[in-house]
């Protein structure tokens, strides 16, 4: 398997800026994200403070970024990164069911919007899971709930329905999976995850559901879930001015590295992170 020099997670201004710089330095790069780039970016009404671009809309800015990636011969690998594992001298990146490898990683995945459900954090790993493909096989014949926030959630629910006895699917912001004998769709709003030592009940605005596991499938996850062992500060990864984190070889840039949430700041940090990764690779003699 190819072990990339630099894996970059996120296709907003921070990730793209990091990719451009890394490519310039002749590094092999794995840019993970969406071919449509950052959905937050294309929705921006107008950007007034980006040097060189006068009153540009988010959609036009995204188009220019795409053209720049094409010109530089950088391709985007589509996929959601479930987790980044620091293995010491390299990183394992779980993308769907695949495990990819890189010598360094730049996390530019954006900051998680919205709040966790009460109890979600507390019971994570104890009746709450973020990964259907990872944990489904622990629940053969059992009853599980799926909170479908992400675009992929409906597919994961269908996969779960092949293994679990019963899947209760709560569509939050996503496609509706195929209903079947053991997949039921409930249009209720989850409010809280309850339990004792482990989570056992999902409370919604309309009642309570007993479950063996609650799968919460979101587009973005908290940084410590994305990178086990990384030091965080609220929803942000803690970085220094070189964009280094507490894990050697792991860097962060953009919104996930802290406020202000500005495109020009994100692009600047992406640049610094890429240069720091390049110098890390040099020092490691790889």
């Amino acid at each position, binding site marked *: 398997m190819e072990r990339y020099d630099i894996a970059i997670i996120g296709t907003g201004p921070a990730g793209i800026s990091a990719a451009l710089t890394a490519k310039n330095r002749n590094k092999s790069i794995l840019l993970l994200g969406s071919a449509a780039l950052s959905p937050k970016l294309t929705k921006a009404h107008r950007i007034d403070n980006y040097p060189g671009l006068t009153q540009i809309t988010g959609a036009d800015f995204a188009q220019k970024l795409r053209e720049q990636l094409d010109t530089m011969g950088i391709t985007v690998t589509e996929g959601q990164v479930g987790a980044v*594992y620091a293995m010491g001298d390299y990183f394992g990146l779980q993308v769907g069911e695949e495990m990819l490898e890189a010598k360094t990683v730049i996390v530019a995945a954006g900051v998680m919007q919205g709040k966790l459900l009460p109890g979600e954090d507390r019971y994570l790993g104890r009746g709450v899971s973020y990964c259907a493909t990872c944990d489904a096989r622990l629940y053969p014949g059992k009853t599980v709930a799926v909170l479908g926030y992400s675009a992929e959630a409906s597919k994961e629910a269908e996969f779960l329905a092949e293994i679990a006895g019963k899947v209760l699917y709560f569509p939050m912001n996503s496609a509706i999976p195929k209903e079947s004998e053991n997949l039921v769709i409930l249009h209720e709003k989850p409010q809280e995850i309850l339990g004792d030592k482990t989570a056992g009940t999902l409370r919604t605005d309309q009642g309570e559901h007993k479950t063996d596991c609650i799968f919460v499938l979101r587009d973005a996850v908290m940084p410590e879930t994305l990178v086990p062992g990384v030091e965080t500060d609220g929803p942000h990864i803690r970085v220094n001015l070189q964009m280094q984190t507490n894990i050697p070889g792991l860097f962060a840039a953009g919104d996930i590295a802290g406020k202000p949430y500005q495109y020009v700041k994100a692009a600047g940090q992406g640049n610094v992170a890429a240069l720091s990764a390049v110098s890390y690779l040099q020092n490691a003699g790889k």
Partner: protein
Amino acid sequence: MVREITNNNFDAVRNAPFAVVDFNATWCGPCRMLGPIIDELSDEMDDVEFFSCDVDDNGDLALVFGIQSIPAVGVFKNGKLVDMSVGFKPKAAMEHFISTHA
């Protein structure tokens, strides 16, 4: 060295003063990443006995210890479970977790 637990036989852990059990499964991605780290720690932490427990092969043990998500790493003192770490941890963090119970 990490010893494999088979047939739900937990005697070796019960008889160990200080043991670490890595509950895992072959199909679990994070478990496969944690495995080599547990291997390395077993070579470096001389006063700890390390075990690997496949939850598919040892379903009864997984049930007894309430394993809900894997990897799960349990610390056992004189056969009693004293702490459990769920999920992947980098080597330094896992070493810290185990050594706090030394």
